[in-house]
């Protein structure tokens, strides 16, 4: 089956959820970690054993017809028991609508439908300084990414090896101080965190892209930018990266109806070698894309 000649795009592989698994997981822990922001721990060892940074899972409240569809949520971290056996995974989410509002009411012990891992993980990113740029809830895929690239943790296959980086900086922008989630945890992992708030309640008052500019103007040597957040921020970051000639990947939060490549709802305009563009499915071709390939 693996030999089937499905078309691939611009050198990157197309991820067909070959290793995905679906199960009804038990919620192990669920707590508020910031304004409108929760951390949810699920018991799903099979998925947790396979998932790598940048991939996501679909979550659905069992037997619920409204909301009907699953929702995509990024891997935050995997969880192990004291004996070193993989137990499950954590996601961190922000309450914005129908499903996340209901999810916030679920308690430890409640069942939740989960399927994954889905999407492609982050590409190898060979560099010395990894610059992570997050807006709003966009920091969620970065915790596992940073831990792995700093050599503190392995995700997925135990023999998986990824290029090490020397330094990780997170430029983290939110509306106001009370929306900051997980900053201490990032710092404990040795990640330099530059905080920006729109209202100036903490850190730099202004946009996260201003922090990024400041860092790059000190040194843009051997950097790689990875960005996740609202689209205007992604676009602005991609432009800055191009100006400083630094490679940049973006992780998109495109709305998804299935997350596994069935529906063609999550399409993104991607530049083609012939100079034109084509729609590609963010769930199977992404959600991480080379920023220069996206038609904003």
């Amino acid at each position: 089956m693996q030999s089937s000649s499905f078309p691939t795009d611009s050198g990157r592989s197309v991820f067909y959820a070959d290793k995905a698994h679906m199960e009804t997981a038990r919620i192990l822990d669920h707590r508020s970690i910031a304004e409108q922001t929760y951390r949810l721990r699920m018991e799903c060892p099979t998925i947790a054993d396979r998932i790598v940074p940048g991939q996501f899972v679909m979550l659905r409240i069992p037997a619920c017809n409204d909301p009907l569809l699953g929702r995509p949520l990024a891997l935050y971290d995997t969880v192990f028991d004291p004996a070193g056996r993989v137990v499950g995974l954590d996601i961190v989410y922000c309450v914005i609508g129908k499903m996340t509002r209901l999810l916030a009411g679920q308690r430890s012990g409640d069942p939740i439908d989960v399927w994954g891992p889905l999407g492609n993980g982050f590409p190898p990113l060979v560099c010395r300084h990894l610059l992570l740029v997050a807006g709003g809830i966009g920091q969620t895929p970065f915790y596992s990414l940073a831990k792995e690239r700093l050599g503190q943790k392995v995700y997925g296959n135990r023999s998986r090896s990824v290029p090490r980086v020397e330094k990780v900086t997170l430029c983290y922008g939110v509306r106001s101080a009370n929306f900051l989630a997980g900053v201490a945890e990032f710092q404990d992992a040795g990640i330099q965190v530059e905080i920006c708030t729109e209202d100036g309640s903490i850190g730099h008052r202004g946009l996260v892209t201003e922090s990024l500019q400041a860092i790059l103007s000190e040194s843009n040597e051997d950097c790689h930018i990875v960005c996740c957040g609202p689209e205007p921020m992604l676009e602005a970051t991609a432009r800055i990266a191009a100006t400083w000639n630094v490679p940049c990947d973006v992780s998109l939060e495109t709305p998804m109806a299935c997350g596994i490549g069935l529906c063609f709802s999550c399409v993104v305009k991607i530049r083609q070698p012939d100079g034109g563009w084509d729609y590609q499915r963010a769930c199977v071709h992404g959600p991480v894309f080379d920023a220069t390939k996206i038609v904003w």
Partner: protein
Amino acid sequence: MTRADIDLQVQLGRLQLPNPILVASGTFGYAREMEAFVDLKRLGGIIPKTITKEPRKGNPPLRTVETAAGLLNSIGLDNDGMEQFIVHILPYLAELGVPILASIAGRNQTEFVELAERLSHASTTSGQASLAGIELNISCPNVSHGVDFGTDPIQCERLVAACRAASALPIVAKLTPNVTSICDMARAASAGGADAIALINTCLGMAIDWRGRRPRLGNVLGGLSGPAIKPIALRCVWQAAQATKTAIIGIGGIASVDDCMEFFVAGASAVQLGTVNFYNPRATMDVLDALPDALAEAGVLSVADVVGTLQVIPS
């Protein structure tokens, strides 16, 4: 009666299927995407995403919006065209050993016929017959070009007859519920020589963001699917079954074995699962596991024995 005695095979005109559980066009990608969740070999049939003669980019995002117990979509037949399908996708599907029905949509009758001819040819020249049939998508609400084969019975009959003449493969006509009389359309498809009639495609609808005073879908209008449309689909199947003897494939909001049984009783000889694949990728397997017991509970030995057994007590 035990599960082992139950015969799941179904015959729809010239089309024979190992079981009545199929997957609906546009809701199962090109099947490859589902390998991790579904034992594809167990399916009664696969209808891949509709193909057109030339590649189509499809509609601008947002292409889907969730509504109460339903999903509105305006994908707009995004596909790489017939030749890419034949070269890159058909060989994979042919190897699965499951009946594959290619879904086609043309902008006019000539294109439909060309598609049917080309696919029949490709199907037979690849050594083994890679296609079990052709499904005519004469019902997509997202690509209107003036000619509406799905709403005009005369055009519908002519189109089905022309495709039947152009191909030796069994023909399924897939109908839209967005008509005044589904019976007229079912009779027309039947008169044109369809081996089976599949219904329903999505119900035309829309969603609005009143604060922004904007339609939510990029294409303004879209097709509604999912549990919300099941009663409409059941009604269409039941009415069509009264109007024609041609076999019927029920589609619309099916999510469980009970839903399937309701469609069989209403008059469908087989069913297609659609939107449910998005929110429960294992739905087809769940249904197949439960089907023999449901048929046993109905006291029948085959699917055919339960088809069209609805009893309506005259008032």
